[in-house]
């Protein structure tokens, strides 16, 4: 006569549900851009302004040895900057879902624990792809050309997106930790600025003071930008690309478990 019913057998969940769940959440996040197209518009204006600003305002003053055209040097840097800035929106989106109770609903559903985060980082990667393509068009209009061929060009875009995805997971952890949208917006930017600007994204590292070079040389942004440069301008690619991939894998290995764990406990 126990009041507590006996434990029921627990059904195993098929592995493909994990992917189906992530896909369903990705789709839901992308609807946002379809329904509020101005969001997409504004997330593209800023990167395009950067392309034009650096090309026409700073470009004339920046001399890069071995590169005729500053835009050819700039493009790798500005692509990486764009995907990183884009990835800061991951945390903002998650904070918004938390504050509106969506995360509670998702967490009460029998869906994969990783799906909300995977769906969010994936949809932000899709958004990044869109912005990157648009920037390549604008870049081409102001003189940028791929010098290393088609396959390295595709590789460059893929590498930039993978780097953005890795940063999305860092941003996810921040968004889940700060919880409210305004803080996520502020916290999302402060840490990427030094990474982006103290790197080879806009100027050669060799022009910086020695102490800053020490940081810039190991900065993952520098390493990824250099790999992208090799893929867009030509030159040896294997080593820089492997270094960039190692950083991406390292970031994912650390931040995916941290973010998922944080999500599990996202109690409000």
């Amino acid at each position, binding site marked *: 006569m126990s*009041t507590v019913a006996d*434990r029921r057998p627990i059904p195993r969940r098929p592995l493909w549900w994990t992917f189906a*769940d992530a896909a369903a959440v990705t789709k839901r996040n992308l609807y946002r851009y379809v329904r509020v197209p101005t969001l997409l518009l504004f997330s593209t204006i800023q990167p395009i302004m950067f392309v034009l600003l650096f090309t026409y305002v700073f470009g004339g003053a920046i001399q890069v040895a071995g590169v005729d055209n500053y835009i050819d040097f700039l493009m790798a840097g500005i692509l990486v900057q764009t995907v990183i800035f884009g990835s800061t929106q991951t945390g903002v989106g998650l904070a918004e879902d938390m504050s509106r109770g969506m995360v509670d609903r998702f967490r009460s559903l029998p869906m994969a624990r990783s799906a909300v985060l995977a769906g969010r980082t994936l949809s932000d990667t899709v958004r990044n792809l869109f912005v990157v393509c648009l920037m390549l068009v604008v870049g081409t209009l102001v003189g940028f050309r791929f010098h290393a061929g088609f396959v390295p060009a595709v590789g460059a875009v893929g590498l930039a997106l993978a780097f953005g995805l890795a940063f999305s997971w860092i941003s996810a952890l921040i968004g889940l930790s700060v919880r409210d949208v305004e803080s996520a917006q502020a916290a999302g930017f402060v840490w990427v600025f030094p990474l982006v600007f103290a790197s080879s994204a806009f100027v050669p590292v060799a022009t910086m003071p020695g102490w800053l070079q020490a940081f810039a040389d190991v900065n993952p942004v520098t390493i990824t930008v250099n790999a992208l440069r090799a893929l867009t301008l030509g030159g040896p690619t294997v080593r820089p690309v492997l270094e960039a991939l190692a950083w991406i894998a390292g970031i994912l290995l650390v931040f995916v478990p941290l973010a998922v764990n944080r999500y599990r406990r996202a109690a409000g």
Partner: protein
Amino acid sequence: MRDEAIVTEGLRRHFGTIKAVDGVDLAAPAGTVLGLLGPNGAGKTTIVRILTTLLDPDGGSARVAGFDVVRDAEALRSVIGLAGQFAAVDENLTGRENLDLVGRLYHLGKSEASRRADEMLERFELTDAANRTVKTYSGGMRRRLDLGASLVGRPQVLFLDEPTTGLDPRSRFGLWDVIRELVNDGTTLLLTTQYLEEADRLADHIAVMDGGRVIAEGTSDELKSRVGGDLLALRVADRARVAEAAAAIADLGSGAPQVVVESGEVSLPVREGASILAEVVRRLDAAGLEISDLALGRPSLDDVFLALTGHVAEAAGEDGEETQPPRGRGRRPARSRA
């Protein structure tokens, strides 16, 4: 043997020094409605969050539909539905897309998810608005959609956390009808509310909560009878003399008088109500106390709450629209003015 759909034993959850849930035992047989009634901060929402696996308990145990909330959390989620205090629906999706998304996440399969979405839209009278984005919905429509979402997965146990808070009275009554229908379908329901009337109307069994503990439980009638037979309520014209009035009639009651100084009200549980009315009036008159209102009736759950906790249930919805008067409404046949 009864099949308990919800069981908690010594459930505990503290946040720092705040004992949000402090040793709660609950039981709800399958197919019944358990109402958790209490003011803000009583611990109702924390219990819902523990039972829906959103929050781990610090101590004690809880089972829902036979699944342990900690060890079997994943399996548990497939048999429950939750509608929280705020409508958790995506503004940028249409009503149908919202329901479809939830169906997919319950792994119903594409066609079944879509069929369930249609059923819910119809049941909650949202078919006309099905293809509009939720941004265009009214508060009541969002709540109905949210409730629909919580039902898409055909839950065995449904959790509704203050389902009608912030709704206008008409939407509230409409939602009550829907909730009653659900229960007729055999769903077990745990409902939290700060509206005493809501618990009275919907719940088979009510657990009254205050400060993280269950301070009383039973059916609505059982709780009311705890206050005593009848309840005498009066209001003195001069609020400053309310304590004096209470003292003057204290020995006539079957329990201690309760006083609400702000409104000048005194309530007193009494055994044979009608026969002492005259005596009450006589004594107050003799003391020179003017009465502005005098009533005798069955106690409401408000009275129960007051008697149990010594303070008035605060129904402070975000809109502040419904401030419960300290004396309950209705059920007050013998009202005489002095």
